């Protein structure tokens, strides 16, 4: 058999700007993406202290429209889609029949009968297929909207002020969305993010991404790469699909019961309800090390000398300057304050179950 052709990596509209800015480019979910510019910790702190800008154009978008768009999404997504107002934003998981998580998603209600759902890049094709497969019998249309959008995240305590300064109208509040003109360019502004900071995500025509990026960088936004995005989200205890969420685990185990409304009858709701009722066999917990070392995905978690779970995300916290992570553990080891050990390549590092989030801005 002939070897398959080498996979072509895609580039976002901002690729040339990343290269010019000295970014280190890596393959990620089929895209050539900037992993860092000035340095992970410098970018991380810039987002916590001022504001940063991320190219997240690799993320996918699915548009669902039509008279039964809300009914279809109510069947697919775990949250109560029908309760979302026009201009609203809602986080949910997409479940299999057995409750396993196919993806975690933000959906925006653009109009009464028109929704936009943002997918993880690696899951986009799978999600789109799942949406379409389950659309039969609904008077609704599912469209791959990924080619229509570039996506920028502007995050940090100074983010809103900087974006507001180039906007024609007030920005939408947190967890809402609105069409605005930024520097004269039409943009869907969303009051969402993945850093634990205030800020917005901007969905734009791909041609508008470059001018917007340039304008916001000129106004002080620090270009931030995927590596800082990961350390920021982990300090905030946001899930990373593929690490903290996988098809073989359900949302209750992941601590995402708050976005599951089983009474809506979404696909997988029976399985989710059963786990919620019986109690999960494992729970995702945040933890921090109490000494040196950096936990990594796959490290065993021990309590009282017994293996009780496994690390799904780990890093060095740039703000706390200690190793932090999240992992699935037995419920008996899940309470905040529980003393753990993380087996970091043969060396047991003391750790403690923490409260969410792992980092919070000092009051």
């Amino acid at each position, binding site marked *: 058999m002939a070897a398959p052709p080498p996979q072509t990596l895609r580039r976002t509209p901002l690729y040339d700007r990343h290269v010019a800015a000295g970014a*280190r480019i890596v393959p990620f979910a089929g895209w050539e993406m900037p*992993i*860092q510019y000035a*340095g*992970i*910790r410098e970018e991380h702190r810039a987002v916590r202290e001022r504001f940063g800008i991320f190219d997240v154009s690799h993320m996918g978008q699915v548009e669902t429209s039509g008279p039964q768009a809300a009914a279809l999404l109510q069947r697919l997504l775990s949250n109560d889609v029908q309760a979302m107002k026009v201009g609203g934003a809602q986080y949910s998981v997409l479940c299999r029949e057995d409750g396993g998580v196919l993806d975690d998603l933000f959906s925006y209600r653009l109009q009464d009968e028109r929704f936009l759902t943002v997918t993880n890049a690696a899951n986009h094709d799978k999600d789109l297929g799942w949406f379409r497969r389950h659309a039969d019998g609904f008077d609704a249309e599912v469209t791959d909207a990924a080619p229509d959008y570039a996506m920028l995240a502007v995050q940090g305590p100074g983010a809103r002020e900087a974006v507001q300064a180039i906007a024609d109208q007030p920005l939408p509040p947190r967890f809402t969305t609105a069409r605005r003109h930024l520097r004269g360019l039409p943009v869907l502004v969303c009051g969402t993010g993945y850093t634990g900071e205030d800020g917005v995500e901007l969905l734009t025509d791909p041609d508008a991404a470059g001018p917007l990026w340039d304008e916001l960088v000129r106004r002080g936004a620090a270009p931030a790469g995927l590596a800082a995005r990961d350390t920021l989200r982990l300090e905030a205890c946001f899930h990373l699909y593929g690490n903290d969420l996988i098809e073989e685990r359900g949302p209750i185990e992941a601590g995402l019961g708050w976005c599951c409304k089983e009474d809506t009858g979404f696909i997988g709701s029976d399985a989710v309800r059963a786990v919620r009722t019986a109690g999960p066999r494992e729970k995702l917990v945040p933890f921090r090390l109490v000494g040196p*070392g*950096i936990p990594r995905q796959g490290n065993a978690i021990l309590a009282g000398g017994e293996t009780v779970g496994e690390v799904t995300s780990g*890093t*060095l916290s740039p703000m706390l300057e200690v190793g932090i992570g999240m992992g699935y553990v037995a419920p008996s080891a899940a309470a905040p304050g529980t003393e753990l050990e993380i087996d970091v390549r043969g060396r047991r590092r003391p750790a403690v179950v923490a409260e969410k989030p792992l980092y919070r801005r000092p009051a």
Partner: protein
Amino acid sequence: MAEATYPEDLLYHPEHDWARIDGDTATFGVTWFAQDALGEVVFFDPPEVGSSVSQGEPYAEVESVKAVSDVIAPLSGEIVEVNTDLADTPEAINQDPYGAGWMVRVRLSDPGERDELLSQEAYTAALS
């Protein structure tokens, strides 16, 4: 340091480690290429003084925010000193990989092994 640098007075192991031989001991560290590939080093896990190291085998771990890497011994011997300053300033491995970023000093057990290491010229040729 921002610019790639490979001192002429060092010997190099293809796994991006250097050795500075001084009589029957040698100082080890990682090269500019290694620290650049790692990114910001945030943790250095040193070996114990008195433990032995073997040419081509890992003797320590160095971690950046994103990943952990083994550090390979360019020569065999017994560790007589470790750079304890790296516990507090692991970034020295990035900033000064051939100076303050040194990792261990080793009493060599087989000085003939040096013939297997690369000169600066051969190492940099292999990088390009």
